[in-house]
């Protein structure tokens, strides 16, 4: 199909240039092109050159049609071969003397290729630029660098300079000589037996990786994110339910530790994070010192990682528990009936609160700037809560130690009002205020 259009184009050119047709296909062998073509008027030679280029292009296309069918070169829109006029002093200029930075040159030419061909002006210092396919005939010798845009550069003769083709192939036939570097941008170099004294380079167009996922629409992206947040919520809720069912006491102690000593828990969590790696390193070094220890290293690594994960996730759940508990108690104090207060309810409310920012990001994350801000806030808050939870888990030894859980009331807090409102069973009389020996004791009130 393309070959047919090329034939038509050639016929049109022939028709329009009958006055100059005498030059005919002998043009590539003409001696008049030994210097860079600089004429601005359509001469018989340039017309003949164009016709010859078209014929060459037809031949190239015919060969390419027989080759692999998926070559990107075949999909390029061909343009009428013509010289690109030099731009003014302030116009675009492309230096072809150094082709080692192919990607930079490609970016420059990519921007120039978007300019309509009628208005395209380009200066090549020490050379020339052509639009459409260009052929250097077997008797021709061209001096200076040559840039061919959106077409093939076919060399039968000699080029004394660098050769660059943008969106086109470079074909160097037997007997051809290029005394410089050759670069095909978004095309290929086909050395069919010619001599290239410089370096031969090709750079393809940008291609997405094979496994790249197509960009999602905003709806799909939002749906996926909402589903992700919901999934995380359900997973954490399930973990929390398990923890509440089988380790409720530990969960409550860690939760109370966060409630009563949030600042201390956060600082402890921060220090804990900093010391994670050094502790791990010390553990490994300690184990390396003995043969039995070396054998234990794989198990120690697994156990250490598991402990850290349990500490962080468990701590985060304890923070959610504390938040849910605070909310529930506040609502109950306002006389609003929320059902039976339980750790499960606390966890659901708390997790919903902690995930609120992530939910906001899931819905509005696609909004420029705001989406980034929301995500940053969500990350920050999550890290803050996880750090506090991790610290509380460390302080309470995973819910074993109650010292920081507010469950031990100092003697000075045992006021008359407290004692009046608090059942006295189980409170040792010796530990009440004013009984002398109880100054150093803290009254355990767990279970009151």
């Amino acid at each position, binding site marked *: 199909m393309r070959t047919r259009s090329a034939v038509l184009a050639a016929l049109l050119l022939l028709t329009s240039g009958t006055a100059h047709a005498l030059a005919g296909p002998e043009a590539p062998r003409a001696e008049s092109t030994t210097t860079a073509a600089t004429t601005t008027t359509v001469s018989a030679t340039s017309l003949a050159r164009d016709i010859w280029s078209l014929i060459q292009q037809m031949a190239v296309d015919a060969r390419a049609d027989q080759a692999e069918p998926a070559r990107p070169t075949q999909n390029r829109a061909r343009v009428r071969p013509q010289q690109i006029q030099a731009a003014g002093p302030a116009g675009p200029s492309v230096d072809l003397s150094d082709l080692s930075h192919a990607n930079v040159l490609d970016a420059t030419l990519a921007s120039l290729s978007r300019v309509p061909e009628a208005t395209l002006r380009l200066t090549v210092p020490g050379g020339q630029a052509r639009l459409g396919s260009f052929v250097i005939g077997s008797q021709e010798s061209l001096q200076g660098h040559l840039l061919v845009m959106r077409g093939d550069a076919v060399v039968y003769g000699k080029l004394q300079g660098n050769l660059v083709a943008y969106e086109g192939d470079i074909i160097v036939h037997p007997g051809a000589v290029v005394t410089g570097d050759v670069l095909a941008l978004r095309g290929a170099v086909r050395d069919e037996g010619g001599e290239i004294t410089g370096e031969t380079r*090709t750079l393809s167009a940008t291609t997405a990786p094979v496994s790249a996922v197509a960009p999602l629409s905003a709806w799909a992206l939002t749906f996926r994110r909402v589903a992700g947040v919901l999934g995380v919520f359900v997973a954490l809720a399930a973990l929390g339910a398990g923890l509440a069912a089988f380790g409720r006491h530990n969960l409550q102690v860690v939760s109370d530790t966060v409630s009563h000593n949030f600042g201390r828990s956060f600082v402890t969590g921060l220090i804990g994070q900093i010391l994670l790696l050094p502790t791990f390193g010390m553990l490994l070094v300690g184990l390396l010192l003995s043969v039995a220890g070396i054998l234990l290293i794989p198990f120690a690594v697994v156990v250490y990682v598991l402990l850290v994960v349990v500490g962080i996730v468990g701590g985060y759940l304890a923070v959610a528990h504390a938040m849910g508990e605070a909310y529930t108690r506040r609502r109950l104090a306002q006389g609003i009936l929320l059902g039976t207060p339980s750790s499960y309810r606390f966890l659901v409310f708390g997790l919903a609160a902690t995930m609120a920012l992530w939910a906001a990001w899931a819905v509005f994350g696609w909004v420029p700037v705001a989406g980034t801000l929301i995500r940053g806030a969500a990350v920050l808050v999550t890290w803050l809560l996880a750090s506090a939870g991790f610290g509380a888990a460390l302080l309470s030894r995973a819910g074993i130690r109650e010292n920081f859980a507010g469950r031990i009331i100092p003697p000075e807090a045992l006021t008359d009002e407290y004692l009046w409102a608090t059942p006295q069973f189980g409170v040792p009389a010796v530990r009440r205020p004013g009984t002398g020996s109880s100054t150093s004791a803290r009254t355990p009130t767990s279970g009151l």
Partner: protein
Amino acid sequence: MGARLGATALLLLGLPGTLAGQSMRDFTTARQLHGEDRLVTRLDFAAGTLRLRPGTSRELYRMRLAYDAARYAPVSRFDAGTGEVRLGLASVGGSGIRVSSRSHLEQRASVSLSPAVALSLDLTLGAVEADIELGGLRITDLRLQSGASRTAVAFSRPNGSRCGAAVFEAGAAELTLTGIGNSRCERIVFTGGVGKAVLDLSGAWTTDAELRLKMTVGELALRLPRDVGIRIRMDRFLASFPTEGWTRQGTTYLSSGYARARRHVDIELTTTLGGVSVEWLP
């Protein structure tokens, strides 16, 4: 008003679609052989898969790259004056490490070098899985520096010229050297940080050689030919070494038949943590 809102909504909805994915590009560079008799090759490849092979005698070198254009730029620069070529990838900076799927690590480099010229080879590899075949080339000196890589270097055929020194420096890496006897190197230095190294001393030994091996933490496996006399001077700390089949003289171990062997290899071995294993080749 409604139309404006609709247009704004459409614009905003279209924004996520413009999120650019990672882009890969193919780059090829080659140079015909025009009477050169020596080539200094410096290859720097930061991440991906590398394959190096002897090329054709018509080309001085050829490199094919598939690389992440957002993070790297191809390097191909030949200096005709010094006969030195720089190949590989240079980081363009600013993008950082951005890996969201395994496919993003699939940068590939395929390099071939001329067997017709004397080669000085300097390879710097980062997070690379490298398969390097040097058999049949004419290596005069070799230096390989690898980071967190898995590298296999083989001399499947004898080196075309005498090699002064081969230096291998491996960080946290796995390195396998096969057919060291074919390398014709008089001096081989291996320095390993953490990891595993396999040194296969098989091949056609044409000269005596000296190996200096240093492994800090990890496993060093030596595959030794029986027809070559091996002497190991050992400096080890918390590292095991199988002493069976060796004649011990202080900290020096001599292989059986060392005195009668036509070729001798002296190994200076320093290892700290880990072990040295020895496998005798028939």
